[in-house]
């Protein structure tokens, strides 16, 4: 599903050039659950942003579903992203001014799903995530765990092929964290590919494979049994 080859990304300031990704090559197959680990600054988030088409690489190849996307325009990337990729963030990133329902509905609006269909799909997802009773609440009225459920609902409502999760349990206590990991595992079992950046060995154990990065390169890959 995803194949990146010799991917490079630099961050430049006036005096310093930092290498974030150094000729990185990774392949992720459809239906896989991959965890990316490594110390702060090793390039995990940069990799996730490029995979999510929020950022573009300086060189190298990125093939998504058989299509080379490394140098797609912003418009094409946005189009590909909204139909294929869902995001889950550490800090949930819900819009405070929108209710739970409206937050989850947002991706459907941008993909042009008709209103009646939107209601049906949002309700379905909220029901599945057991957060239906909170549909008219605002994010700040929810607990951290509940907020992350809403964020996951938003990520999956468009039925994406890929979910990118950036430290999804980072802001949660262990029981809420476990619940979120169970949810991601369920989604993976239903066929969704998941790539998750995490610091937590505990969370990484939910994945099929761990890719460990250091200084923008793969140092080791562990296959989980």
């Amino acid at each position, binding site marked *: 599903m995803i194949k990146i080859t010799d991917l490079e990304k630099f961050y430049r300031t006036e005096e310093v050039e930092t290498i974030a990704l150094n000729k990185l090559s990774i392949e992720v197959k459809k239906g896989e659950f991959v965890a990316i680990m490594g110390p702060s600054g090793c390039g995990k988030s940069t990799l996730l942003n490029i995979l999510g088409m929020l950022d573009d690489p300086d060189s190298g190849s990125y093939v998504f579903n058989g299509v080379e996307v490394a140098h797609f325009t912003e418009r094409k990337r946005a189009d590909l992203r909204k139909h294929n990729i869902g995001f889950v963030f550490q800090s949930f*990133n819900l819009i405070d001014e929108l209710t739970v329902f*409206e937050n989850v509905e947002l991706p459907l609006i941008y993909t042009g799903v008709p209103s009646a269909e939107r209601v049906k799909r949002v309700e379905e997802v909220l029901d599945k995530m057991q957060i239906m009773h909170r549909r008219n609440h605002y994010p700040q009225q929810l607990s951290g765990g509940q907020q992350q459920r809403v964020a996951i609902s938003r990520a999956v409502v468009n039925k994406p092929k890929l979910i990118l999760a950036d430290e999804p349990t980072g802001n949660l206590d262990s029981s809420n964290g476990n619940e979120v990991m169970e949810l991601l595992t369920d989604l993976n079992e239903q066929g969704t590919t998941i790539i998750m950046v995490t610091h937590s060995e505990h969370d990484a154990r939910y994945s099929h494979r761990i890719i460990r990065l250091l200084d923008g390169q793969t140092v080791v890959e562990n296959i989980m049994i």
Partner: protein
Amino acid sequence: MLKNYLKITWRNLRRHKAFSLINISGLAIGMASSALILLWIQNEVSYDQFHAKKDRLYSVYNRSVFDGKLWCWNTTPKVMAKTLKQDYPQIEEVARTSNNNFLFTINDKHLNVPGYFTDPGFLTMFSFPLVSGNKNTALNNIKDIVITQKLAKKLFGNDNAMGKTIKIDSNAYFTVSAVMQDLPNNTQFKFEYLMPWSYLKKIGGDDTGWGNNSIQTWALLKPGVTEAEANKSIVNITRSHSEIKDIDVFVHPSGKWRLYSKFDQKGKISGGRIETIRIFSMIAAFILIIACINFMNLSTARSEKRAREVGIRKVVGALRGSLISQFLGESIFIALIAGLIAIVIVQLSLSGFNRLTDKQLYIPYSSPWFWFTALSFILFTGLISGSYPALYLSSFRPVSVLKGTFKAVNALITPRKLLVVVQFTFAVVLIVCTIIIRQQLQYAQDRETGYKKDNLVYVMMTGNVEKQYALIKNDLLASGAAAAVSKTSAPITQGWSDSWDFIWDGKDMSKKIDFNMFNTDGDLVKTMGLKLIAGRDIDVKTYPTDSVAMILNETAVKTMGFKNPVGQIIKRPNDATHFTNWHVIGVVKDFILQSPYEPVKAMIIQGPKSWFNVIHFKLNGAHTTAENLKLAEKVFKKYNPDYPFEYNFIDQDYAKKFGDEQRIGTLASLFAGLTIIISCLGLFGLAAYMAQNRIKEIGVRKVLGASVAGVTTLLSKDFLKLVMIAFAIAMPIAWWAMYKWLQGYSYRISISIWVFVLAALITIIISLITVSFQAIKAALANPVKSLRSE
């Protein structure tokens, strides 16, 4: 999508109430101010544009050189109209208008009403619709009168006025031949009735001379005739019909009557009220821009709050275009709310604004054009104010905003700083202009008039007053109502005539020199309190030859080049072959007859062998004003019983000379004040956000020992710097604008450096108060709280 945008806009407005209040009130005040000015401008530019034949309507003008200067004026000889219609095929119709003021009597009701003598063509040339009567015949008979609905109501109440009889003065009866709709508020014509010219002729008010320019002539050109063609054919009309060889005649189109009444030395249109229109259009634009800038500044200052939303929307698939539409939609929505509030503000302030501008403006709610314009105005405001924030906010990259690494730029020159500078530049320019306009007004008001205005009253000579004048004068003095009485040609606050046909010893006959004219039967110096600098006052009782005596003002003495003016003979033609020899018996110090902004013109005051319209009398200082007026009323009622006793105080009349400048001054102060308020609202909001953004820095500084004063200074300093830059830019602009404005006045102030110092102090103090409120609040906050939020 739209629903989603509206929802989030509404919730944002509700959640950030202070921000919304500042933003909406700033925009609403700005829009209301601009709308008021636009209503005023719309009224000005629509003057006399409602006439169906406006494209063919012209006013007839004269043009000639006096004392080396070209003058253009719109009073003409009475014979001009008839000649134009008879001899010039380009002219389809003509009408003359001559002002008059008759006493109307219906039973025991007496009314002094202003109106015109005019020709029958007036009703067909101009579009003043009749409610009843026939416009083609309404002024055909010598005793016909056309009255407005307002006058009909005053005279006859709700009865039908058609065919009713009105007594005019004490001796004539007119029949109402038509009732006209009241004049709209955008016409230069001011009358409540029209009387046929034939009646003026009957009472001896018509003449066929080409030398007396005292009425206005209006011409309707035939279809297809251009202004240039008409001008070419009529330019020599005066030359070819009289002995006067140095006057050109031309026509001035109806579209330019109101706004373009000034002509340059080549006789080309050079301006007029259009200059004021331009100034106020600029002020309207300034205020709206300032309000829009507030919106831009506050929206972008909140960018860190909105950044996350932008990031999330982009992540879930929003393109930049859809975000731009979202933010523009938001600003248009806010502009719509502000626009509706602005309409309420305009409605509430309209009566006050009308008093200030001496207009009857109103909001035309039933006109689709109004709503179209209002919505366009709202859309325009929304787009302008939302444009920069939309482009700025939509440019955020989701990677940085969602990771929390996003920080708004804090560069040396940011668009936001630039906008604050622009805003305060406008504000400072307006403050400086306001101060200078007020100084100029004060300067002219303080100018020595040359006569004593207090306790000086004038009465128009109506009915029997002229005949009974000697007795009235005697009784006014004998009753103790007046200390002095003088009969004159016009009120001393107004010059009603001028003339250039005087001949004196040593005159350069190749030059045409114009003199202001004033007539008196005597006691002028005593009544007005003029300062005599040579000779004596006119006194026909003691010196019977004073019937042809003259008094000159100082400027006239200089103009005529007299070393010893008293005793000089000045000839004035009665007709082509006869002259009257007037002899100069006195010289008075210059006094202001016309504009207090212009130098006093050369002036000749003729003795009793002249014409008179007005009685001036100085009230007796031994009595109260009320007592004097009661006594005077008794005298006038005794000799002129049919007429109401109507008097005017000279000091009040004189104050009216400053009406225009006073209005401009008041409006400038008002709009300068509003500009400051709007700018400070923006600054207040901006300071609040800046303080919030630097809350951690403030916490750290306080922990390290910074004082409240130190932190306040730190936060205020940045804004003050911007205000100072604005001041530096505004100073030359304001100086140049006011320098140009003052050039329009001969008697004017010179711009002092203190004006700028004062403006700087006002701006700095006001902005400091605004900013320091937020700065002190931030400085007083407990650092523990702000640091914990890390």
